[in-house]
């Protein structure tokens, strides 16, 4: 209010100076012209100073008419900051994590994406600063504008008019920014990023349906069976998960699976995992396992009856051709008896070391026909093999993900830097236009 009082007094001073110039006994038109000019300026300044409250009221009224408000605008800004912060933190973490892995070459595009986000952060900070300044100091900005407007000899007329216009336009325009951004944002961003996160749960069981502990799942790509594209170790209950954000799977994939257990490579049934599967049960038909002992029988052998308890495996089976049965136990399981159709067999165990586990193997021939094999032993537990896991990563999916991340970051850049920039430019142009109406364009002819 004090500023407005001062503005009124200075307007009066301007008026009096105008009158003084008009009363000068100098017959020079160029000097005399300033008299009516200053009188008109002073009257305009007084009108503005008296209407300061009206201008502020007009801002609130316009805001109500357009249906926008400042708390919603700040809520929008906070939501944007939170989303941006989340993505930025995730990207920074991913970039630093990836640096120590074999995919360190990916850290460069991730850093680029992070730099986009940093620019967006700066833009957000600018928006916060500008909007807070307008929201808090709007009335002061108007008052200072009027004060500058009322200075004699049009010293601050242009800038004063701009202050008044900007305080009104920005106050009404800023809360409309979310509506402006959202109306353009939907056009481009919607087609952008889709994170393809598929989850497939796998359960590995033996021929009887009992879970196989710590199975090592080797995944091979559709075309080659050479080097596995992924090695995943299941848990104690034979469960494993692929996808779920841990693996980069392509959109339509088909993977051949082989299970490594106690050093044996076993083809499960089914042996293929493909896109669209959600729960897969991999049955190892040639394996009977219980408490540290595994009996391996070849394909084509029919299991008629089976009784498995800790420390005893008894299997009735039928085969057209004879085969060799493999018995493997962990070091701690001592076999007390191996019986074929009730008669005890002698079997020489050979020790074997695989993936940090010491095991004992023995093999014995089984003739054709129906037979019963019984193994008695002291139960033990099967430790987790020390195998280096290798999550499934397809290069094409990596590119898809990077493209997705970059698209997301560019959409942030678009929504928080480009669109607000354009909007602020529009507001500034409108303020300049209104300032011209208040200062430059308005001409009063009094004399």
């Amino acid at each position, binding site marked *: 209010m*004090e500023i407005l*009082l001062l503005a009124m007094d200075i307007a009066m001073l301007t008026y009096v100076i105008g009158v003084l110039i008009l009363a000068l006994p100098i017959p020079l038109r160029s000097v005399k012209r300033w008299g009516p000019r200053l009188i008109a300026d002073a009257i305009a300044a007084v009108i503005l100073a008296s209407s300061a409250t009206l201008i502020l*009221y007009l801002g609130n009224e316009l805001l109500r008419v357009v249906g926008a408000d400042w708390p919603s605008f700040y809520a929008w800004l906070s939501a944007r900051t939170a989303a941006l912060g989340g993505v930025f933190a995730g990207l920074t973490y991913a970039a630093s994590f990836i640096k120590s892995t074999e995919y360190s070459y990916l850290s460069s595009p991730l850093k680029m994406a992070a730099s986009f986000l940093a620019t967006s952060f700066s833009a957000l900070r600018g928006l916060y600063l500008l909007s807070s300044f307008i929201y808090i100091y709007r009335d002061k900005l108007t008052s200072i504008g009027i004060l500058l407007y009322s200075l004699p000899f049009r010293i601050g007329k242009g800038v004063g008019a701009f202050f008044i216009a900007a305080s009104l336009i920005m106050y009404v325009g800023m809360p409309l920014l979310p509506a402006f951004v959202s109306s353009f944002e939907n056009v481009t961003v919607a087609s952008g990023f889709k994170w393809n996160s598929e989850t497939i749960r796998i359960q590995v069981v033996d021929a009887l349906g009992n879970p196989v502990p710590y199975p090592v799942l080797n995944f091979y790509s559709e075309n080659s069976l050479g080097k596995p594209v992924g090695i995943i170790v299941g848990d104690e209950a034979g469960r494993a998960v692929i996808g779920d954000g841990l693996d980069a799977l392509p959109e339509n994939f088909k993977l051949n699976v082989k299970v490594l257990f106690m050093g044996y490579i076993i083809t499960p049934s089914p042996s293929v995992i493909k896109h669209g599967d959600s729960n897969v049960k991999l049955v190892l038909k040639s394996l009977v396992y219980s408490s540290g002992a595994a009996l391996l029988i070849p394909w084509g052998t029919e299991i008629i009856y089976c009784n498995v308890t800790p420390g005893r495996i008894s299997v009735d089976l039928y085969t057209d051709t004879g085969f060799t049965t493999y018995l493997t136990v962990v070091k701690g399981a001592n076999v007390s008896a191996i019986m074929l159709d009730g008669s005890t067999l002698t079997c020489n165990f050979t020790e074997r070391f695989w993936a940090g586990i010491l095991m004992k193997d023995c093999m014995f021939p089984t003739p054709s026909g129906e037979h019963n094999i019984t193994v008695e032993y002291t139960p033990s537990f099967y430790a987790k093999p020390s195998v280096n896991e290798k999550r499934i990563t397809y290069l094409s999916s990596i590119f898809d993900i990077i493209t997705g991340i970059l698209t997301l970051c560019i959409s942030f850049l678009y929504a928080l830097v480009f669109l607000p920039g354009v909007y602020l430019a529009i507001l500034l142009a409108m303020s300049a236009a209104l300032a011209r109406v208040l200062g430059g364009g308005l001409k009063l002819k009094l004399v």
Partner: protein
Amino acid sequence: MDVVTFVRNLTVQIMAIAWALFLVSWVVGWAVRGSPVPIHRVKKAGQSLVEDAVMAAFWMAVGSSIFALISYLTSNLYQPLPPPPKP
């Protein structure tokens, strides 16, 4: 002395000078106009000095009234708007 007082004092002083200048202009104007010089341009300058001096005196006299009127009008203009009609 604060800024407001300074500006008000300055205004009063300038107004006093302006009144004095009005008298000077008015006198000089008539003197030039009535001088026995048969040059039309000089007489016209005297005429314009008298006219400007009279206009200045007029604006000076109505100045405070104009300011008061504007303040009165704008303070009456700002009234809360009536509530919107209900169907």
